[in-house]
């Protein structure tokens, strides 16, 4: 990965250390750098997507200290010393997580652009609520927009992964 889109000379660059997908990472970031830019541009973790840049679409959802957040609304500087889990981290062992497998099996993937954020939201839900109702699933992913699927198979997949 070369030139970082969000990286620049504005503000004083700072070195931050954090844990990403169970690995210690160090990066030089500007005050303006957001978490999604840190992940994509500095750490080459491009699985996390940007769909709107305003926290309205959920494509950039990652788990920060156990909770799903829109990575486009978090400054990288605020992640110093914290733990981040991204879509890549769910299959870090080389084997896909059960939520990922459920999405494949249920046909919940179409264009795939919402998929990483959607799966991360689902993973976070199931971590705190292993047997959610369909209503709870719908609420948990209501901040993750999908324009392809009509959400039916996505909810099916999360429901399937919860069993």
């Amino acid at each position, binding site marked *: 990965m070369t030139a970082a*889109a*969000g990286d*620049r000379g*504005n*503000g*004083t660059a*700072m070195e931050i250390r954090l844990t990403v997908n169970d690995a210690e990472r160090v990066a030089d970031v500007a*005050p*303006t750098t*957001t978490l999604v*830019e840190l992940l994509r541009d500095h750490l080459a973790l491009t699985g996390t997507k*940007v769909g709107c*840049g*305003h*926290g309205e679409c*959920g494509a950039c*959802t990652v788990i*920060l200290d156990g*909770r*799903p*957040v*829109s990575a*486009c*609304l*978090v*400054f990288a*500087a*605020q992640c*110093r010393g914290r733990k981040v889990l991204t879509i890549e981290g769910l299959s870090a062992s080389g084997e896909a997580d059960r939520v990922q497998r459920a999405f494949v099996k249920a046909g919940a993937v179409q264009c795939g652009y919402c998929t990483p954020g959607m799966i991360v*939201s689902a993973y*976070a*839900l199931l971590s705190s609520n292993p047997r959610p109702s369909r209503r709870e699933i719908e*609420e*948990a992913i*209501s*901040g*993750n927009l999908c324009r392809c699927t009509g959400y039916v198979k996505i909810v099916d997949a999360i429901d399937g992964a919860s069993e």
Partner: protein
Amino acid sequence: MPIAHEFEYVKPTTLDEAVRVLAECGDGARVLAGGTDLVGWLRDDLVAPDLLVDIKGIEGLGELGLEGNALTVGACVTFTDLIESETVRIDFPLVYEMARTVASVGIRNRATMVGNICSAVPCCDSGPVLLVYEAVILVKGPSGGRAIPATEWFVGNKTTALEVGEIVTRIAIPLPEDGHAGAYVKLGRYRGEDLAQASVAILALPRDRYRVAFGAVAATPVRAPKIEALLSWKSLGDSLIEKAKRLIRQETSPISDVRASKEYREHMLPVMFERGLRAAAARLAGSGPEYGTRFV
């Protein structure tokens, strides 16, 4: 889209340090907590600070719980914290009900109640609820601390009583003495997350006393004293509710924007008010819909 405007970032570890830094930088500084509003505004070049003061490293600002007879909501307490707190859910059910309507899970995990009232957009969900609880906003500045009643907090669209150099440390929400119930009714365009087109908070107190506030139908969230006066000390019946509904126009001044027309807002306020009022009264009587139910 990256943020084009340049600024510096500091993360003080004590409140004194934060206040000092804010004082030094004057109106070029902005406080950063959850950042869910601020980052978007920076991206859109709506604000241009020289310095962001991240208060998440300051001990004590994450405090959430009963202190004496009031709920302390520290500056770093998120909407998720509020939803997950047993104290909030049981003792301050209206706060719980309101928090459940804020944006989506991913935003609620970052967005703070204090940030919500500091942004002070007319549709901010916390506003009407803090008004009816008669909450107090505690701030600290170079010349010490002060307490600002919620009724004096909202000055205008995106403007508050906070002065340059001051920082909100917490909100104190007094626990009504002998029990209460409430309802938060929020109008959205669809079932998905939406900013309020209009909102109503009702607090029902024993012996037929009510507090009422509206959101998104004036430049700031507003309390409705005329309606409260009409309702108080009377048993709630259909004709009283009808009378109260007629007063709504005197208490609000909705405008048309991209989310709704003035006319629709005017139509909806009485409907929302009645639903909320009846639910709050029923809840106080021990029945009524579960908190977290959607009314529209």
